């Protein structure tokens, strides 16, 4: 089970302002608070900085590394920004994660060399040149190909984190179930490959989004999801995460649940 902290994203107002003012202390606080709350990786995304994404990515990586030991997840659809972030982050002996590669031909070709060069873990998004998947069958078709290609290209199955691409149930009633079915298939067919997802897409366009996000986290875990991109400082979410993990038998002697309890990590 793995938590990637999602808060350092330039589409969030506080981060946008911190980047504009080069307020490294604000960024560092965000990194440290997520690490303290249990994030295994800190995601860094500055995709909204269209003119200077690479430079901004480097600045963010450097400023986080000054104070925070947590491994980093370099997040961009642009291979150039990924390369810039990885280059800045490689100077220390910590694992790296890349967010993300897809089965789109050009993106696959551009990101694969980075995964290899930095021996990084990689989030593999289930989409290809035909578009985004709608059904479980679409996802399974792309997963079979993408996992096959990554392994054939020398990536260890345990370094692959499949993101099944979660779409809002407000735009398709079966969109939650299609993801769960695909996750079940991948878990069975590729036991060493990990599954990861974000939790806010599922509830887009609906009221009381937090409730839906939390329920979906639990349902996905029961289907085999073993990593999440989320806000680890959301105490209610984390309580359900630790509880769900223990209930499904992924937490020997409930040690993680108890440790989180003693550290006061959740409500």
């Amino acid at each position, binding site marked *: 089970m793995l938590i990637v902290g999602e808060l350092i994203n330039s589409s969030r107002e506080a981060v946008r302002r911190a980047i504009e003012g080069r307020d490294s202390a604000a960024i560092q606080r965000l990194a440290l608070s997520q690490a303290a709350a249990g994030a295994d990786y800190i995601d860094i995304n500055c*995709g*909204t900085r269209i003119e200077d994404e690479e430079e901004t990515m480097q600045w963010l990586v450097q400023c986080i590394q000054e104070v925070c030991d947590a491994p980093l997840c370099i997040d961009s659809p642009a291979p150039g920004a990924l390369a810039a972030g990885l280059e800045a982050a490689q100077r220390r002996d910590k694992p790296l994660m890349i967010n993300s590669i897809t089965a789109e031909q050009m993106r696959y070709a551009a990101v694969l060399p980075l995964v290899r060069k930095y021996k990084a873990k990689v989030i593999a998004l289930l989409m290809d040149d035909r578009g985004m998947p709608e059904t479980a069958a679409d996802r399974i078709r792309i997963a079979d190909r993408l996992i096959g290609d990554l392994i054939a290209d020398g990536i260890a199955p345990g370094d692959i984190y499949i993101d099944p691409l979660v779409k809002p149930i*407000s*735009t398709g009633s079966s969109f939650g179930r299609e993801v769960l079915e695909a996750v079940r298939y991948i878990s069975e067919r590729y036991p060493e490959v990990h599954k990861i997802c974000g939790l806010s897409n599922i509830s*887009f366009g609906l009221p009381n989004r937090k409730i839906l996000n939390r329920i979906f986290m639990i349902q996905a875990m029961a289907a085999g999801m073993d990593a999440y991109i989320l806000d680890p400082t959301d105490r209610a979410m984390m309580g359900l995460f630790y509880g769900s993990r223990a209930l499904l038998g992924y937490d020997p002697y409930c040690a993680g649940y108890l440790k989180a309890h003693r550290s006061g990590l959740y409500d």
Partner: protein
Amino acid sequence: MFEEIKAAILDGDAEKTMALVKKALEEGMDPLEVLNKGCIPGIEKAGALFEAEEFFLPELITAGEATKAAMELLLPELRKKEDAWQSAGKFVIGTVEGDMHDIGKSIVASMLSAAGFEVFDLGIDVSAERFVEEVKAKQPHIVGLSALLTSTMPKQQEVIEALKEAGLRDKVKVLVGGAPVSSEWAEKIGADGYAEDAVAAVKLAKKIMQ
């Protein structure tokens, strides 16, 4: 009757909406009146409720689908009296090259159709050349460019530049949208407007057509 049609649209009940519209036409009602007093107020009310956060996305989508279904019955009748009727405007829409996001663009297209626009949906991953070709061929009043990735937003600018080069820029209004897009971005790349969601897009399109 008009109130019933409006209510069926707000319920997102496409079957009932179609049955009511059929009945109205059989009873000899003017299709233009059915449109203007039943369907349009229905979908406009759905939009207003959505803006007020009393309606949520699935309700907006089903209201749009119900209105579209009604339009399919009404359009042939309206076209019969050609001089009396024209669409709210021609609208070409698509997601830019390299971007596979379909959902938002399709909801906007559906709401525009429901509002009486003649919509040409080019789909996803549409190149600048294709947008130029379609603008040439369809001669729309407005073209809508969707981008959901920060990495594909610059493609919106490319389409605008390509329209300029083809000498078409002053013949068509360009609207942009998508989660990472903003009104600042729209202004920066020389678009004519930005809409945050489907309801805002319809409002903006109507304003342009006035």
